[in-house]
C-alpha cells in the first residue's frame, strides 16, 4: 500500500485521535496535516509496512506534543490523576461530554484502543507506559465514564 492509500484509509481516525488529544477541531486538523507531511518524508524508510497504521498514529502523537512545545509528558502516577467526577459533582452526561471531562492521560489510551483498535501492548509502547499501567488507565477511564453517564437518581442511590 502506497502512502496515499494509507492516508485515505486512516485520515479520519487520525483526525479523531488528534481531536481527543487536542480537544480542538482546528488544532486536530493542523496536527494531522503536519504529521502527514512528516510521514510522507519518512515513509521510504519505514521497513515494517504492516505497522504503518501504528506508525502514523505515533507521528500524530509526536506532532501534537511538538506543537505543544513540550516533550512527552513523564509517566504519571495514577494516584495523582483525578477523574473528573471525583472532584466535581458530574453525572448524567452524554458520553461525548463525559469523554471531554476525562483527563487526557485516560482519554488517550482509550482513543487508541477504540479508534485505532490497538492492543494494550501496542498502546503501552505508543504512550511510553507499562502494559499494566495502560490497562489500569483503560479500566479507570471506563469506570469514570460509567459514573459520569449515570443518571442522577442512580447516582444518588449509590452514594
Amino acid at each position: 500500500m502506497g502512502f496515499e492509500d494509507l492516508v485515505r484509509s486512516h485520515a479520519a481516525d487520525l483526525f479523531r485521535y488528534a481531536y481527543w488529544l487536542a480537544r480542538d477541531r482546528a488544532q486536530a486538523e493542523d496536527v494531522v496535516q503536519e504529521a502527514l507531511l512528516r510521514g510522507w518524508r519518512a515513509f521510504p524508510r519505514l521497513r515494517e509496512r504492516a505497522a504503518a497504521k501504528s506508525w502514523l498514529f505515533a507521528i500524530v502523537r509526536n506532532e501534537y506534543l511538538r506543537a505543544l512545545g513540550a516533550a512527552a509528558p513523564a509517566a504519571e502516577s495514577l494516584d495523582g490523576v483525578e477523574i473528573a467526577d471525583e472532584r466535581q459533582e458530574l453525572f448524567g452526561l452524554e458520553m461525548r461530554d463525559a469523554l471531554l471531562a476525562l483527563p487526557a492521560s485516560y482519554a488517550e489510551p482509550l482513543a487508541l484502543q477504540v479508534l485505532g483498535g490497538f492492543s494494550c501492548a501496542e498502546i503501552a509502547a505508543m504512550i511510553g507506559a507499562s502494559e499494566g499501567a495502560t490497562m489500569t488507565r483503560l479500566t479507570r477511564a471506563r469506570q469514570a465514564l460509567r459514573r459520569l453517564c449515570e443518571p442522577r437518581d442512580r447516582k444518588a442511590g449509590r452514594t
Partner: protein
Amino acid sequence: MNCLDYRRQLLTGTGETDAMRVHRQQCAGCATEWAEHAAFEEALGEAMRVPVPPGFAERMAHAQVARRRKFLAAAATTLVAAGVGGYAWLARQDPLAMACIDFVMKEEAKSIMMGAMPRSEAALALAGTLPLGLVERVGQVRHIAPCPFNGQTAYHVVLAVPQGKVTLLVMPSTRMSGKRRAAKEGMYAAVVAMTSGSVGIIGSDAEVVSSVAGALRS
C-alpha cells in the same frame, strides 16, 4: 474465573476470552453485565468517532499527490540544472533501452497476467538495486513480478505516477555506466545505472520517463 475477575477484565476493553465466555454462560449476573458493557462500548465508539471535516481524507490524500508532483518536478529540474537532462531520445537507439520498449509492447501484459509476487519478497529482491520505499515515493506500485529479460532475472514493476503509467525493469545483474535511451512507436525508454545493477524506465511520455529516471537516481 469468578465474577470479580470477569468484570475487571471486561473493563479493560480487550474483549472476552474463552474462559470469560464460559463463565458468562454459567452466570446470569455476568451475562447482564456483558449486555450492559456491549451497549456501553457501542456508545463509547459512537462518541469517540467525532465528525470529520467534509472531504478531509480526500484533501489529505490529494496533498500527498501534490507533494509527489513537486518532488518529481524538482528531480527533473535538478537533472536539467546539472546538465544531464534533456534526453535526446532519437539521437541514440540503445539496444538495451530498445529491448525495454519491446518488453512493454510484447511481454508486459503476459507478465501481469502471470500474477504479482508478494510485496515482502519484492522488497527483498529489489533492495540491492532499487529500494521499494523509493519506488513507492515516486508512484503507486500496481504490479511487481520477476521476469526473464536480457539473459537474467529482472523485476517488472508497473508504477502509477500522477501523470500516468510507467514501467520499470529492475536489472540487478546489469552493470553499466551513465544512461541509455531509445524511442520507438510512441514509447520512450531510459536505462539508468544504479549503485548496483540498473533500471529501465519505459513510458509513453518522454518527460515523465525523464522525471522518473531523475527521481529514482536522486
